[in-house]
């Protein structure tokens, strides 16, 4: 539970790190791209707004000049007597006003009184004198005048163009329909929320704003400063271009909402986002798959290392324990020798005594024998522990394990028979022979079979299996129908002196010696409890060819 939690944590961190690693650069890239794209769109809008205002300025100027020029031609061509005649003016009006943009024509003499008029407002203006009007004075001084837009008597917006003849003998004045003029600007609109209009110097709108703006905003007013050429300013979401026209009397405004030109940008952005989302998701899946894979490897590796660590620890422990046991055995052998010598000496001297004088003669004799017996016991232990005889005799021959086991069984068959224990053999027919120390291995088999005999009850079963392993080795298994080994004992079962048998019945050296022998022959021995009950000892030994 604890462990899986640990792996989950690693998995989360790993896949999290991968996701961050992938998504963060992608998101940054996307954001930068978006910002660049947007800037490009804004630049483009600014460029087109600049071009547009330039064009509109030309159109407006041209329109005004055209009207002025027309009037100038007229006053140049016709003397006051001719134009002052109402009939002539009527004819002329019809001739020049085919487009319909001229609302009326006035002919005024230099003293300001009206000579002739053609147009819809004839009644309301008869008998008017214009001498004091500022525009009239301007015409007399400058030769021409173009007025701001104003609502005429009928509340129709219009403006006035007036010129005088070179002799300044009279003034020809035309009222121009603003509607026509407005139309010129209408086409100057960029996007549905764009705007374009003209204001005079005071900021009064000369043409209507298509967005319904009635007067200039505070910000717009700051743009009214006189400037050469086109000025483009960007405030928030709006780009405003301004351009002075008509000798600095009117200012042309063209406005565009950035929003309106962002359509393609949004489309682009949607595309990019979906591409990023798609790649992001596939990377996410990859990251998760990789994390899973990595984690599985990690778990496997950890497990292998733990196993390896386990056997290493076991081997080291056995080596240390073995060295210690041998050291102790060595040191004990000399005192044991002295004990048995001294006891033996007493035993040899006792017969020289007068039996009449030694009351407990029999007891002494018995006691001496007991001492010798116990020294023998201790000696057996130290000798087994040191593997004295086997070390000296050790010698390798070509061994057939089936035969060797069979021979070992013959040593214990009688004893097994008494207890009604059956020994079942599963021998591999084609078991290869190998170079090994036969007598020593026989000792191992004897230990294992004796242990099994001790473990099973009357009528128990011992199964011995031999088989060829997969990596040029031989596997020997000794299984029994006994109670098996308690899990808590599994770890120390090969330790010297580990025994569950009564004192004097088992020294706990059998498995230790077996382990040592197998180990020195380059093999391994392992114990397990069988699912079907009982213990199974498995020995693996390498196949070594003679020579």
């Amino acid at each position, binding site marked *: 539970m604890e462990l899986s939690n640990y792996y989950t944590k690693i998995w989360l961190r790993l896949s999290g790190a991968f996701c961050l690693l992938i998504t963060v650069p992608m998101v940054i890239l996307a954001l930068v791209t978006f910002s660049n794209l947007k800037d490009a769109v804004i630049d483009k809008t600014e460029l087109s707004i600049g071009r547009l205002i330039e064009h509109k300025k030309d159109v407006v100027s041209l329109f005004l000049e055209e009207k002025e020029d027309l009037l100038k031609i007229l006053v140049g061509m016709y003397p006051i007597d001719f134009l002052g005649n109402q009939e002539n003016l009527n004819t002329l009006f019809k001739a020049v006003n085919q487009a319909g943009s001229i609302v009326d024509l006035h002919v005024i003499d230099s003293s300001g009184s009206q000579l002739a008029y053609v147009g819809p407002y004839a009644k309301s203006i008869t008998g008017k004198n214009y001498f004091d009007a500022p525009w009239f004075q301007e015409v007399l001084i400058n030769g021409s005048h173009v007025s701001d837009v104003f609502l005429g008597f009928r509340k129709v917006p219009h403006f006035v163009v007036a010129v005088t003849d070179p002799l300044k003998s009279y003034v020809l004045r035309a009222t121009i329909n603003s509607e026509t003029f407005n139309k010129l600007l209408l086409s100057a609109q960029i996007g549905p929320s764009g705007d374009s209009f003209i204001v005079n110097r005071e900021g009064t709108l000369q043409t209507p704003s298509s967005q319904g703006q009635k007067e200039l905003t505070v910000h717009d007013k700051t743009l009214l400063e006189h400037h050469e050429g086109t000025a483009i300013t960007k405030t928030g979401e709006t780009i405003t271009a301004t351009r002075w026209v008509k000798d600095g009397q009117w200012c042309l405004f063209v406005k565009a909402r950035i929003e309106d030109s962002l359509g393609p940008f949004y489309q682009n952005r949607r595309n990019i986002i979906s591409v990023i989302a798609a790649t992001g998701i596939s990377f996410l899946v990859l990251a998760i798959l990789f994390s899973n894979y990595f984690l599985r490897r990690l778990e496997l590796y950890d497990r292998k290392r733990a196993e390896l660590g386990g056997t290493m620890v076991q081997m080291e422990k056995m080596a240390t324990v073995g060295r210690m046991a041998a050291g102790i055995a060595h040191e004990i*052998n000399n005192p044991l020798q002295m004990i048995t010598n001294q006891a033996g000496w007493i035993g040899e001297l006792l017969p020289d005594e007068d039996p009449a004088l030694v009351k407990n003669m029999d007891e002494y004799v018995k006691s001496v024998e007991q001492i010798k017996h116990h020294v023998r016991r*201790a000696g057996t232990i130290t000798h087994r522990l040191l593997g004295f005889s086997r070390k*000296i005799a050790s010698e390798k021959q070509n061994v057939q394990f089936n035969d060797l086991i069979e021979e070992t069984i013959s040593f214990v068959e009688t004893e097994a028979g008494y207890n009604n224990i059956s020994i079942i053999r599963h021998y591999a027919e084609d078991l290869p022979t190998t170079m090994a120390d036969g007598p020593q291995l026989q000792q191992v088999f004897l230990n294992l079979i004796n242990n099994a005999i001790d473990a099973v009850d009357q009528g128990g079963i011992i199964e011995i299996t031999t088989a060829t392993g997969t990596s040029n080795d031989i596997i020997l298994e000794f299984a029994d129908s006994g109670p098996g080994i308690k899990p808590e004992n599994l770890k120390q079962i090969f330790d010297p002196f580990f025994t569950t048998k009564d004192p004097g019945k088992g020294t706990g050296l059998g498995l230790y010696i077996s382990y040592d022998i197998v180990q020195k022959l380059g093999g391994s021995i392992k114990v397990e409890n069988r699912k079907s009950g009982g213990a199974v000892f498995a020995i693996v030994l390498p196949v070594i060819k003679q020579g």
Partner: protein
Amino acid sequence: MREFNVLVVDDEEEFRDLTVKRLEKRGLKVLGAESGKQALEVLEHSHTDVVLLDVKMPGMDGIETLRQIRILKPLVEVVLLTGHASVDSGIEGMKLGAFDYLMKPIELEPLIEKLADAFERKRLQQEKIEQAQMKRHMAMPG
């Protein structure tokens, strides 16, 4: 049992003296030596059939002493006895021609048996040599 001469070589006095005493009580002729050097001296000056030699001794150790004995008295049999079994010294000792390699603790009976066996071998060996010498002697034209 035949009477024969034994030399007990051991640096531990208690063991040496007691072993000498006990072997004598069994009717053997026994001497003791506390080191390899002393053992070689004794061998030179008195008749010895079998040497009981401790492997681990200070100064000249058992194996070295054995080597010297083989040079000095090739016919004398040597039985090695040790509390410290070491594979190397055991194998080495057997290679150098020791009669056997015994491990402490050992009781007197089996020890005497071993010594007797060693003496027996020595006796046979000597007999063979004597016979061979005799044959040569007789074959020589008078």
